[in-house]
């Protein structure tokens, strides 16, 4: 649902093609500090607040994980 926007954002930082389940941090595509930029991007682009209990790298490690996280936030399930 939100995958295209996430992919477009990640393309600015990752030149290799990655599949939706690939772990961008452990795969070495980005360094872990990139997570800060990712969280700020998610908050700004999807108009949501990442709460302190959401600040776990697992929520942001792949396109699918990010997509799931945003969908859950939008549905009020988180």
């Amino acid at each position: 649902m939100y995958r295209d926007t996430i992919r477009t954002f990640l393309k600015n930082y990752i030149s290799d093609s990655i599949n939706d389940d690939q772990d961008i941090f452990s795969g070495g595509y980005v360094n872990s500090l990139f997570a800060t930029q990712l969280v700020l991007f998610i908050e700004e682009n999807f108009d949501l607040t990442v709460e302190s209990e959401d600040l776990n790298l697992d929520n942001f490690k792949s396109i699918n994980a990010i997509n799931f996280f945003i969908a859950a936030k939008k549905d009020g399930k988180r």
Partner: protein
Amino acid sequence: MPLDQIAVIGAGVMGTGVAQTLAQTGHKVLLLDRSLNILQRAQEKITRDVRMHQLYTGQKFDPDQILAEIKITTEYGDLAGVDYVMENVTEDWLLKKEVYQQLDIICSQDCCFASDTSAIPITRLASATSRQDKVIGIHFMNPVALKPMVEVIKGVHTSDKTLAITKRILQQMNKKYIVVNDSPGFVSNRVLMLMVNEAIFLVAENIASPQDVDKLFKGCFGHSMGPLETADLIGLDTILNSLLVLYDAFNDSKFKPCPLLKQMVHAGFLGKKSGRGFHTYGGNN
């Protein structure tokens, strides 16, 4: 002597990180910079970084509580009562010299000065003061709150007492340390700056793209970041200034900065903090 009143001079990337880390480890901090505007930006960065700290460590801190432990000031006179000073001023000898001369006049005789310099020798910085035994180097790594180790540098005159006080503060900050003797660039930056400069020459000569240079170091040597990502994180202006200090100190052409590095700094491509260096970065870093 209680070591809970610590002044941090300079509210750039490093000073901000040092202030944050001190406050997160129970210290009261006085953060000084030349303008209120810079200090307000530092407070915004600290708020953001304290929040994100949890993402990397699982440790949760309240940004408002951390900020409450960091007083800001533009007045050197406010430093009269501090026990220890951590200086994080731009890598420029004349700027730093002026700061140390001011600190020497204002601060109490017992107060030690630690310089978070990239390459300027500690013995040279100490020479700007009348307390050369109380000047030491602490080379913090960026991001300060997340990096577990620092390089501690003993100047020619640094006393054992100053070293002991410094070790105690670093233990309180949960930092491991390696103590080395004084040299321009110490151990870490004397090697790192050469590697970064040579990597920039490779890009300038079109031997490889920045992405591929970094991938080689990560994939082949297991580095967590490539040399150009590291340069972007440090700041290309700091890399250039450090190379100039090393070039001046050793009079050795191996430290001569690559023209591409100079051009990028002049163009304002300073790395992560400006949004663009050898790589691009989104948002406010």
